[in-house]
């Protein structure tokens, strides 16, 4: 049953409005979002900027590794990005999957401290398990909503606390 009402005003407040929370008081968290789909990259970028994050996107795992300075045999570090506070990656990507990317990041001394979240359009329990086992902080289902990203951001705040060692899985 669909009911609709409309107002012609330009401002809207919805229940999924982005939560603006402080991060270290002044800096915005820097998120690296990896996805081979144009559409999904654009959407996640907006969801994240709405949640007061700074965003860098990559269209594949190799690109992400280069941005992090973690690619095999990487010589040129000119394109590497400044401190990344969170990595969100799609699971299914051509070439290297999000799972493989997760492993590579966790294997590196600099990368392993960065929380990694895996996103997938498929709800496959064994897939979720193996990602969490490999160190993913969360596993989210696509398509992502503003509320997912806001919740993620608030978990980031808690994860920043060394006394909190928690793993969260969001089901639907």
């Amino acid at each position, binding site marked *: *049953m*669909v*009911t*609709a*009402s*409309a*107002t*012609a*005003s*330009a401002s*809207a407040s*919805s229940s*999924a409005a982005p939560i603006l929370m402080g991060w270290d008081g002044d800096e915005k968290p820097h998120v690296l979002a990896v996805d081979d*789909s*144009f*559409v*999904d990259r*654009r*959407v996640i970028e*907006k*969801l994240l900027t*709405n949640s007061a994050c700074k965003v860098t996107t990559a269209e594949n795992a190799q690109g992400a590794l280069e941005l992090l300075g973690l690619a095999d045999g990487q010589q040129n570090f000119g394109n590497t990005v400044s401190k990344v506070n969170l990595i969100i990656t799609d699971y*299914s990507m*051509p070439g290297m999957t999000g799972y493989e990317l997760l492993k590579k990041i966790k294997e590196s001394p600099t990368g392993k401290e960065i929380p990694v979240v895996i996103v997938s*359009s498929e709800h496959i329990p064994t897939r979720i398990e193996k990602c969490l086992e490999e160190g993913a902080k969360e596993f989210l289902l*696509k*398509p992502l*909503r*503003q509320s997912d990203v806001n919740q993620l951001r608030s978990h980031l705040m808690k994860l920043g606390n060394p006394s909190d060692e928690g793993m969260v899985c969001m089901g639907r």
Partner: protein
Amino acid sequence: MEVGQMQRRWVDYTKSLFLEGILDGQFLQLQQLQDESNPDFVVEVVSLFFEDSEKLLNDLTRALEQPSVDFKRVDAHVHQFKGSSSSIGAQRVKNACIAFRNFCEEQNTDGCVRCVQQVKQEYYLVKNKLETLFAMEQQIVAAGGSIPILELSF
């Protein structure tokens, strides 16, 4: 037509797209992401989807025309299409892709060929509807009005 009338037409048209199952809640999420800093967000993302889709449909059609069909490849394309249509809320396209993947798994060429037709049909339908919707929006804005904010409950 005056602005109020145009806005009412827009509301009715949008409502019908949800009622007919052509669009789902994810499209609303996209609309909610649109704001003064990104006033064309929905059109931008949907245009990306259209571009992506034309390529995917071509790749799919070609892959199924091969003497020996590579079902893994076909399935990969359909998976991608399912993902992007789901991301913009094109519900019927997404559902057609889900059915399609079953035939890929069964390695059923005839089934797959029928599915491509089905997916194409649903894609052109949503494309047509969204282009009409965007044209209405342009009219409203050109007449000095603003696009209504929809509150939909399912």
